[in-house]
């Protein structure tokens, strides 16, 4: 037994040393990486600059990949800012940050991924949050936590360790610029914050999923969205909600869950809904590589639809019709 324990301890010690080297490297702050999430630094600049009368799109990667901000801005006659990056950062981080920096005359369009609205993912996934904090340590106060030891130990801890190992190994190799074959790079965002790296590329195979909407999470999400709305109104900014894009296959998979979510949103959320999921249906070949990422043509079509929805809403409001309509 003693011999076995000694051997185990020896082996564990070697692994601890390796872990220490990798994790300490991984946790070193890095600001100049070309990684996808490092684009948050550019988006932060876009939000904090002094421009007036902006249209800010907020959400996860459905927003990053799904808007032609230039077209949207010109249609709404505002300076566009695309603050979408990754659904795994959750909902609270972008809402908190935008809420703090929104100004009078701004217009905010929310398009939060269904799975984020309806699950613990609204708080962000630790592995991705940690990675983002590596690029921007000051972002920590903008995140909210719904920490659960059980969930962390059962699911998230190994993901986090994996992220550290990958990042630690990369940095040990000298932090060389990543040679990334795909489009997920910071340099592929344009000046408005839109992901444009995939423009002109053929769509890749992807698979629709139907999981992840839980009623109690939706309730919490709505409370937060209503608070956001109220804060923005106080600052003189308008807020609209537009459904993320959805494929017919996914619409079929989500079925009643999605219609239930939309009914709850329309009944309990104070933010006007300008496009429902039914109006945001895109065909499979209009998605680039996942169920949220649109191709260039589809992003343009979506931007037009959203802008039209807002203009229609504004004209109806000025005509005295109800604020919220489906």
């Amino acid at each position, binding site marked *: *037994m003693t*011999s*076995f324990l000694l*051997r*185990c301890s020896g*082996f564990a010690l*070697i*692994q601890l040393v*390796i872990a220490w080297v990798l994790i300490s490297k991984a946790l070193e702050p890095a600001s100049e990486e070309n990684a996808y999430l490092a684009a948050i630094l550019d988006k932060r600049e876009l939000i904090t600059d002094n421009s007036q009368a902006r249209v800010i799109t907020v959400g996860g990667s459905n927003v990053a990949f799904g808007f032609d901000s230039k077209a949207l801005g010109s249609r709404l006659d505002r300076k566009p800012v695309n603050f979408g990056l990754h659904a*795994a950062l959750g909902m609270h981080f972008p809402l908190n940050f935008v809420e703090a920096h929104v100004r009078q005359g701004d217009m905010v369009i929310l398009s939060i991924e269904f799975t984020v609205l309806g699950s613990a993912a609204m708080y962000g*996934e630790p*592995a991705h949050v940690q990675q983002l904090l590596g690029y921007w340590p000051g972002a920590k106060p903008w995140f909210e936590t719904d920490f659960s030891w*059980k969930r*962390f*130990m*059962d*699911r998230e*801890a*190994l*993901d986090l*360790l*994996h*992220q550290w*190992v*990958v990042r630690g*190994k990369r940095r040990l190799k000298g932090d060389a610029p990543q040679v990334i*074959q*795909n489009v997920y790079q910071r340099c592929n965002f344009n000046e408005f914050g839109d992901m444009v790296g995939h423009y002109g590329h053929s769509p*890749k*195979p*992807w*698979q*629709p999923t139907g999981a992840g909407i839980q009623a109690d999470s939706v309730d919490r999400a709505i409370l937060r969205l209503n608070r956001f709305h109220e804060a923005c109104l106080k600052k003189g900014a308008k807020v609209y909600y537009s459904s993320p894009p959805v494929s017919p*296959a996914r619409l079929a998979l989500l079925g009643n869950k999605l219609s239930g979510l939309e009914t709850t949103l329309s009944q309990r959320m104070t933010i006007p809904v300008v496009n429902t999921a039914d109006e945001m249906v895109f065909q*499979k070949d209009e998605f680039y590589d996942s169920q949220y990422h649109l191709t260039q043509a589809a992003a343009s079509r979506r931007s037009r639809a959203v802008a039209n929805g807002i203009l229609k809403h504004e004209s109806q409001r000025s005509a005295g019709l109800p604020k919220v309509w489906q």
Partner: protein
Amino acid sequence: MTFTSLTFICFLPLVFALYWLLRTPRRQNLLLILASYLFYGWWDYRFCALILFSSVLDFVLGWYLGQAKSKRSRRLLLGGSLFANLGMLGLFKYFNFFAESFSHLATGFGWTPGSVTLNIVLPVGISFYTFQTLSYSIDIYRGKIRATKNILDYLAFVSFFPQLVAGPIERASHLLPQFEKQRCFDQQMARSGGRLILWGFFKKIVIADRLGVIVDQFYTQPELVSGPLLAFATVCFAFQIYCDFSAYSDIAIGTGRLFGIRLMRNFAYPYFSQSVGEFWRRWHISLSTWFRDYVYIPLGGSQRGAFRRSRNLLATFVVSGLWHGAGWQFLAWGGVHGSMVASGHGNRHRQKKGQQESAIRKGDGGRDVIPTPGGERNIPTVKTLCNMALTFGIVCLCWVFFRAANIQDSFLIIGRFFTDAFSYSAWQELLAFAGEGKLFKRAVMLLGFLVVVEWIQRRQMCPLDLEWCPAPLRWTLYTIVLWGTLYYMMPSAGQQFIYFEF
């Protein structure tokens, strides 16, 4: 609690340390029971009541069975055990399937019965521990074992956490005596256990979860996917399910060894089999032998002629299919396998090789000895390779039934294999997928790596059994496997072991 979580990684050393500190079998068993119920209740504490009920019932019935003298009362007691265990399984696992099937059938005859389905969760691992407790009652009835008088030993036997949720399905005659006697720490055994755990983690996290992404991608909407891509996804699924399930067994067996408990081998390189019959002697061995002993042989086995033998084989495999899941596709899966084995494909090889080469033999102490797959030669003959490829092809075809969402999709997919076989554009789709990203290349590399490593190490139970290697080299290799697993794991895959569903 799932093996591939930090919870388990912390739980295991803690239980291991306490276990060896306790020393007496009684206390060790008590600890194992508590740990096992904690392990099982981690999913849902209500499941613990179910397993406790099942265990206590079989303990009591087993005790009475041991005491009963008359044949009638013995039959009655066995019937009680069968009724309770199979009833529980039927209620949780099959009730909705049979109710819906009956409803469809009745609708076909113009009668519309009301919908009677239960909104209940299938308790994790119920099929596994139910079969384990059943084997205890049946073996007492047959006089193979004596009923235990110690409920702690019995509870530890039923709930032993490494194999509780997805096997290996142990027999009381093999496992129960191990809980009854004093256990001594065996360093060699513990080390081999550690290696099995490491290899299991690698197979599950790196290979199975990664292949699962490809499989899910193409099997979700098979009607939109070409035949060659579906064929590739099916091959990926064959390895996904193998790596997933054998990984669970490896971790279970390895964990058992850390506690000085020997669990039976569950997989013996099944994809190197040269016939479907041999495949079933190497795949999920604990279940195959369970069905052999408790279904096939009681039905008459290979006695009384070829027709009865084929009928018995077919019936056994259909029941085995039903065990895997409540769906017509599982019945079809079992039926096709049964037909293949019954048609003689499974025995052709054995007959030609003097019925020795691939058959499980009894070794020292009556333990099963599984021969080396693919023969002893390092480079297989062309004939061996052809046999292995043919068997693998048949097994893959059967996996379509297993993986497809329903029986209609299964036939659609198999149809696509043949209709698209000579379609240039269909092959173009596969080439496009192969050329466009890392997913295909990594999958092919991983499959190649797995096959080569397993072939080289097929004489060992675990490919990481490298006792002939100098320790520094071995440790370096283990370190690479460990960190490679963490590096190449699929983040957020969060995939449960596939067999948890059964």
